[in-house]
């Protein structure tokens, strides 16, 4: 089985009933559930930011010295990729935090306007975002020990960085999805608000699914 990777877009399916949906559908034709907005193509056309290159170029004399020691070079390079990945994930976590702030602002607006019923929908979304943010911020860095069953090499770490880069774009999209939430909460249309919250929850769920298997996915050992 080929490893699930970031290169092949999956067909769009309903997050509730998993029925196939069209590219422009906003609601599922089978169950009527809300369909998350299609992935943002905001970054399409612009090349990705390679923080690994920046970390490599900013190596000091001590790190360059370590690169010259036989047997230490691969360790140093691996640590530098992990550092770049850590910088990247912190930024993703910050974007998730921004999305949560939008949800919390909406909660405040809903409370003020007395729309308590929608709070029941918003609470699990805020809870999911609260769970996801630290998971991304302090995720596994790809250490595999002295004699592991499956070794995480530097090529795997490179793929891990590239996999995690997809979460930057996804977090931006989630942020965009939730941005109109406070304004909607101040209005009176509870149905729109619930659709938006459901859509955002579906997106968060997808991010959680993709993130929790990241190491297995890049190592090619994920069984689905």
């Amino acid at each position, binding site marked *: 089985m080929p490893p699930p990777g970031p290169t092949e877009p999956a067909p769009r399916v309903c997050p509730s009933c998993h029925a196939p949906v069209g590219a422009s559908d906003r609601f599922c034709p089978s169950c009527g559930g809300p369909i998350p907005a299609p992935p943002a193509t905001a970054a399409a056309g612009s090349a990705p930011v390679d923080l690994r290159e920046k970390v490599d170029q900013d190596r000091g004399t001590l790190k360059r010295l370590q690169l010259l020691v036989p047997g230490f070079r691969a360790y140093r390079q691996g640590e530098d990729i992990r550092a770049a990945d850590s910088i990247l994930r912190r930024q993703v976590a910050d974007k998730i935090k921004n999305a949560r702030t939008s949800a919390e602002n909406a909660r405040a607006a809903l409370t003020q306007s007395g729309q308590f019923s929608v709070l029941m*929908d918003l609470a699990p979304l805020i809870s999911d975002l609260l769970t996801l943010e630290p998971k991304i911020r302090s995720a596994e860095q790809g250490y595999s020990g002295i004699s592991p069953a499956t070794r995480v090499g530097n090529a795997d770490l*490179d793929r891990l960085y590239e996999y995690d880069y997809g979460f930057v774009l996804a977090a931006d999209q989630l942020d965009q999805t939730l941005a109109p939430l406070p304004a909607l909460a101040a209005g009176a249309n509870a149905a729109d608000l619930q659709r938006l919250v459901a859509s955002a929850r579906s997106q968060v769920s997808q991010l959680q699914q993709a993130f929790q298997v990241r190491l297995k996915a890049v190592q090619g050992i994920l069984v689905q």
Partner: protein
Amino acid sequence: MASVSTPVSRIAAPIVAAILFVAAVVLMVGMYLLLPQNGHYLGLVTIGILSLVFAAISYLAQSLSAANPAPQRTLAWAFYAFGFALLLVTFALPAPAYSLALVWQVTGLVLTLVALAGSIAGIAWRSRMLATEPPREAARAEWRARTPVSAFDYQTAHAPDAPATAPPPSPPSSRGP
């Protein structure tokens, strides 16, 4: 490609190499000239060891210079070859009667051979490691040339059996009080 800082300027490679070369020549020639005639044999051994030390210093001094520190690397190879050649020849050829006992000469030869084997193993290890880097660099360059993909497009984001992390949203209900 996003903005990337220019490499930090470091000491120019030819200057580092020249300093090391001059220091080594002064030390070695000075030592040979200052030693009495019956100390020349030990002087050769010392110069051989000193050459290997300078080989290590020149090799590590690559870290002081920018992208391609070829002068230090060349100098390191020169010291390395000179040091081992001098030590092997000095220990292998018959020594003058006043210099070293045979047992020390053989010990010196064995230690030199062990050091040579160790250094060759290190060179082989490093060469193997360097050989793995071009494919990785090519893969990185290929990724940089591609349009980034959102995590929502990953197959792993659409696993049908993955459990939901929270209960589904409640159905629309009437407004609160």
